[in-house]
């Protein structure tokens, strides 16, 4: 396992390094002078210069980068120049809403992805195959925001079953909170679940062609047992990695979901920060999103390596 980690580490480290550089440069690339923002519009040139020195903006970029990165690594995320509050505090105040959405969507994604994938992988012909293929095709082809809008129109407007805008904290009133979560979580989860299911289905078809399945059949192992302990077991690796890859897109989808469903989470915070040119906030959120996506992906690969010695020992 350590050997596997050592092999994967260089590319993960490169990814994190590049992302941190991009995030660091965002405020500089965005235009606008932070010192000017802090000093105010009626400050004299000397005052602006003094602010620039006090903020450390006169130092070389590399020094500023190391300073910013070491701050982020030790938990000092900086201060928003617009609201003048610590960014960590701003993020904490919005974190709950996004966590509720992301966790419930991840649970639904895994549940539906695995269930549909296994169902589709063990249904090879007839009407069932056609129906499942059509359902998976529709799920994959419709991204979260369009799925969300369709759900709003169907379940929020045509049948007024569920609330379509706003949120309640799950800690305050769990039942109401869930009713607000249902639509955005499903909208976010279903397209990713479709993709995961497709990958599991393809992998299961592939495994069914293997000789050990023929052997099991020849030995008289019951079909259900072949499906579960031979085919499914050898398809789990694909399922796990597929799930790991989709988490990044799930986070991206959450940004749009929060805008559509009127939820005050981190995604909306990022969008508002871009509009108000509060780039110090955006850079932390961009870094956070990519780091989470990369780490989850790495974690899923480690899980796969733990399950499959061929990957762990690089034999395949």
């Amino acid at each position, binding site marked *: 396992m350590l050997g596997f980690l050592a092999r994967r580490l260089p*590319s993960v480290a*490169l*990814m994190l390094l*590049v*992302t941190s550089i*991009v995030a660091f440069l*965002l405020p500089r*690339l*965005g235009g606008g002078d932070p010192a000017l923002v802090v000093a105010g519009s009626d400050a004299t040139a000397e005052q602006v210069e003094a602010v620039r020195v006090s903020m450390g903006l006169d130092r070389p970029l590399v020094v500023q980068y190391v300073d910013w990165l070491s701050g982020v690594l030790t938990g000092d995320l900086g201060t928003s120049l617009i609201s003048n509050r610590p960014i960590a505090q701003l993020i904490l105040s919005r974190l709950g809403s996004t966590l509720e959405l992301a966790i419930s969507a991840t649970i639904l994604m895994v549940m539906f992805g695995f269930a549909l994938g296994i169902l589709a992988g063990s249904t090879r012909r007839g009407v069932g195959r056609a129906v499942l293929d059509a359902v998976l*095709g529709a799920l994959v*082809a*419709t*991204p979260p*925001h*369009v799925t969300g*809008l*369709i759900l*709003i*129109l169907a379940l*929020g*407007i*045509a049948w007024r079953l569920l609330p*379509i805008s706003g949120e309640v904290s799950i800690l305050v009133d769990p039942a109401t909170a869930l009713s607000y979560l249902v639509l955005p979580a499903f909208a976010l989860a279903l397209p990713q679940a479709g993709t995961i299911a497709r990958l599991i289905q393809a992998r299961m078809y592939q495994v069914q062609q293997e000789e050990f399945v023929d052997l099991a059949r020849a030995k008289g192992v019951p079909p259900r047992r072949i499906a579960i302990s031979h085919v499914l077991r050898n398809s789990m690796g694909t399922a796990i990695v597929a799930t790991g890859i989709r988490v*990044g*897109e799930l*986070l*991206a*989808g959450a*940004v*749009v979901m929060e*805008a*559509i469903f009127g939820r005050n989470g981190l*995604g*909306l915070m*990022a*969008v508002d920060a*871009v*509009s108000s040119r509060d*780039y110090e906030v*955006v850079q932390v959120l*961009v870094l956070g*999103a*990519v780091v989470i*996506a*990369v780490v989850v992906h790495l974690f899923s690969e480690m899980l796969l390596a733990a399950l499959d010695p061929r990957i762990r020992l690089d034999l395949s």
Partner: protein
Amino acid sequence: MSAGGTSTARPVRRVVYGERLRRYLGAFATPRFHAGGGLLLVLTMAALAAPLIFPGGVDQQSRDSFLPPSPGHPFGTDELGRDIFVRCVYALRISISLVVVAVPLAMVVGTLMGLAGAVSSRLGDAFQRLFDIILGFPSIVLGICIVIIMGPGWASLAVTIVIFSLPQFGRLARAQLLSEMGREYVLAARVLGVGKGRIMLRHILPNTLEPLFVQMSLSMIAGIFLEAALSIVGLGIQPPTPSLGTLLNVGIRYVYAQPMYTGGPVIMLLLLAVAFNLIADALNAAVLKTRSEA
């Protein structure tokens, strides 16, 4: 094939390539392709001819806001009494123009980057690392970064779509390259002393094109959805210009008063998705068919 004689090599290749193209064209002339292509043609023509069909333009107002759908206003009217159907058709112009410019550009650049390994394996590897990094950025996060650098609008959306699509083509081309590199015809060309660049462009590239066209169709619909996503949150096209995303951005606020304000653009998005997916399906089936015959 005689050594080095391009005059003898060329007709042979032309015959083989023409035969291959003919078989490929024959393979995707299916009902599925005609349905998808026809639908896309209708949508594109409507978008192109919008100023002729609706000479009043996107801002023509009637006296009544939030009229329900009727023969005169198929999708009803919006908060200012403008016809939502007309605005949806005009919005297609932005969606289609974006992907028609951005995706082929990404295809050309991405494919060349993916095939670069044929010329220099170090360069090829470097491009693959670059693709890994781009893929690490979730689509909306990538869009946010580009918007900060370039400001919101058509151009930053186009750049976002290009960067977002690059790895899809690059990785596909790379996979093709790796499977073609071991083939006899590449070895034969190398033995004959054909240059690396020429092998990449004249020998390997023609054999990798068909799967890239499938990807082009899929990347186009992905680009259209990305425009919608970024414009819905306000980081794409800016109102009052109608794009499918900006219409939804405003429409979702009035979803109780005028459900078709949201429904209209969604219908357009779904029609585009159906068209592009049917085309991709047909192209993919054609690839599988020609591969199995070859």
